[in-house]
């Protein structure tokens, strides 16, 4: 039979085929990751240690957190170039808040609390601004987010006149340096975000709607999907996650540099999304793939560093590996 009509008697629904397909999608990036790990075990000195894992996990956190938001934006048919600048804004705001430079603080604890919340909210609002440009004026996402890509970092720099803020505030730096049961807080944060986003995409109405908007916005709207609201929300989430990543980065360094926090992050995040198997054309999202994609990129960077590949050559190798990883990923999908 060419086609089969599923009816109650003959056609038991193939429940597994979807998760199998999903597994196959991820297969490519897993292959790439395993190959890298094997290569490192053979070639890189002292690779198989907990500290290596620790170093790589903590270094990949910020990219993953941003890339999860980017995955959602891309799945909804957009792209967000402003993430790096939003990181800078959040990262600049936080120390301004807990040092009391911005407004008077009743107690330090309040300051710390606000320093976690307000910058993320600010970044989320700027993300919503991106979404507003995209939905209300139908400005294309690359251009809409280019505005904050350019102006956002300027805003962060203006806030401190470009100056570095150095601080030592253990209660705040928990987010970058703390550990719970020996696991770095930022890694836990990353795991929670990935798990939550994966759940949202696969199991919730919002996830379904964002994929519909990314797959065919006109059809989605006619099917009653609140396309504008979904798009707004997605950019807001991306902004908030970028803000959070900004906090992690400055906390980790005990210093906030509006000029550099998140610089180039948009490209790293987009690359992670692509290596993870999410098409840049929208309509599909593989959150776990993004996690693995970011790890591939991180591990490539680590491998090149640890093996003393000169920076210039490393750029060439990295370029080749990104193409290779995306290609493997597509082959695995059978496309």
């Amino acid at each position, binding site marked *: 039979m060419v086609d089969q*009509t*599923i009816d109650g008697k003959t056609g038991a629904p193939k429940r597994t085929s979807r998760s199998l397909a999903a597994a196959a999608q991820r297969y490519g990036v897993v292959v790439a990751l395993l190959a890298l790990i094997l290569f490192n075990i053979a070639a890189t000195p002292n690779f198989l240690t907990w500290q290596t894992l620790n170093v790589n996990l903590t270094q990949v956190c910020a990219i993953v957190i941003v890339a999860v938001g980017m995955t959602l934006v891309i799945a909804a048919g957009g792209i967000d170039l402003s993430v790096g600048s939003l990181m800078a804004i959040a990262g600049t705001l936080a120390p301004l808040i807990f040092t009391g430079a911005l407004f008077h603080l009743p107690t330090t604890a309040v300051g710390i609390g606000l320093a976690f919340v307000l910058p993320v909210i600010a970044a989320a609002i700027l993300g919503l601004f991106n979404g507003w440009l995209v939905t209300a004026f139908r400005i294309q996402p690359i251009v809409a987010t280019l505005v904050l890509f350019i102006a956002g970092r300027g805003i962060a720099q203006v806030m401190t006149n470009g100056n570095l803020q150095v601080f030592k505030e253990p209660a705040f730096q928990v987010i970058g340096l703390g550990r719970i049961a020996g696991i770095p807080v930022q890694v836990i944060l990353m795991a929670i975000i990935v798990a939550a986003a994966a759940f949202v995409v696969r199991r919730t*109405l*919002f996830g379904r709607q964002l994929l519909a908007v990314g797959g*065919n916005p006109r*059809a989605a709207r006619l099917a009653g*999907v609140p396309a504008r609201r979904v798009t707004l929300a997605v950019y807001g989430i991306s902004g908030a996650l970028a803000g959070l990543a900004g906090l992690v980065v400055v906390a980790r360094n005990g210093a906030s540099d509006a000029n550099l926090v998140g610089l180039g992050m948009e490209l790293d995040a987009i690359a992670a999304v692509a290596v993870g198997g999410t098409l840049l054309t929208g309509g599909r999202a593989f959150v776990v793939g993004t996690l693995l994609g970011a790890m591939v990129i991180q591990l490539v960077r680590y491998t090149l560093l640890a093996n003393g590949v000169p920076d210039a050559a490393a750029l060439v190798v990295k370029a080749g590996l990104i193409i290779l990883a995306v290609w493997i990923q597509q082959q695995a999908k059978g496309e």
Partner: protein
Amino acid sequence: MTLVSMRGVTKAFSGVPALIDASLEIEPGEVMALVGQNGAGKSTLIKILTGAYRRDAGTVTLSGREVDFASPGAAQDAGISTIYQEINLVPHRTVAENIFLGREPKRWGMIDIGRMNREAEAALARFGITVDVRTPLSGFNAATRQMVAIARAMAREARLVIMDEATSSLDEREVATLFQTIRTLKAQGVGVLFVSHRLDELYAVCDRVTVMRDGRTIGVHAMNAVSKMDLVTAMLGRALAAAERDLSASHGQGAGAPVVEAAHLAAGRRVRDVSVAVREGEVVALAGLLGSGRTETARLLFGADRPDGGRLTVGGEERQFREPAEAIAAGFGFCSEDRKVEGIIPDMSVVENLTLALMPRLTKAGVIDRAAQRDVAETFIRKLGVKLASPDQKIRELSGGNQQKVLLARWLAMNPKLLIVDEPTRGIDVGAKAEILKLIRDLSGQGLGVLMISSELEEVISLASRVVVLSDGRDVAELSGEAISEHGMMAAMAADAEPRSGHG
């Protein structure tokens, strides 16, 4: 010599066979019909012939020479001109460019724009269409775009012209013009492959018919030697049940309370003044010529576009829908005429597409109830006889007609109060069409209000209890009862200038 001969053609999509040992033969100067249920493999066979898909096995010969086209371009160069099922043109480019893309008239290597426009105008004039060929195609409606695609195919010297459901968005006048052209081609010795689900058309223009079922070619008949009934039976593999055949049952009485009343709707240049009401249990048809504003009226009712003026009363309350979501919440459903652009989410599965509008009702605290979702999907897949490999298949892998069924199911699953259907049976095979029309009638019998737009008068006659005729964005007549006849409607549509009949 035989013009085209395809033998033993086999094709599978990721393991699922779409064609199994299919064959097709066309003689020069012959109009060959290709029929089969939705998903039988007609479009796939055509795409293999034109090099859009590569076959897994089989031979194709053109005028006796074996060919294997690597791309549609290669087939075109070999003299095969094709109108694909989903209109494939470039919306941002002008009409003239669309007609001549790939073989623009040149002078000294440059495009001769003046000549291109003149020739494009002439090519369209053959079909009685006068448009400004310098404007982008995207401004035109489906029917005009279809005519542009036809003009494109005809404007090129060809040995073989393929028309995959080229008539599905045309009304009778344009179809008649098209047939005229086909006869001219035939006289010139050009072969024509003609796919259509409207069987009457086949008898009007075709010489022979090839019947496909489930990916196989199951028979070739001379057109005048096979009865409609036999053809249907061959396609479906069974006889059409009496109830399905009988579409001329009594018109519903439309006794219920009004579901929606629109008064003096206006929007832009397309809708100037339209009043229409639908009551519970009533099927109202919007009739009119191409571009008369039917689709636009439907979109206004559904909140897909904003009206400039007029009133909308829903369940006795005046409403203004800003978004389709609000209309849906009020119990409306709308099945668009353009399934590719406004219907399917191509990369989503059939289940997800089918339940998209219903989804908010299938969630608890934002989390999807997957069992309920699957139940709904399976129920409707069964009810409408959607042919597919698995409900988790991507909808874009389904044949056109089966996609249409899934989209109808999307709205039927909502259990709406008012269903607006724009060309609901476009591209649907006879068996399924009968099922769908019957379903609509049954549902209206249970109190559903239906507003339907159809270019097939037969459908309108068999279903509608009232017909509102539009012309140039105004309602110019309302017919009911005995007045709903082919003759009555044609007369009302043609007589734009006549004073409006007393209503609204």
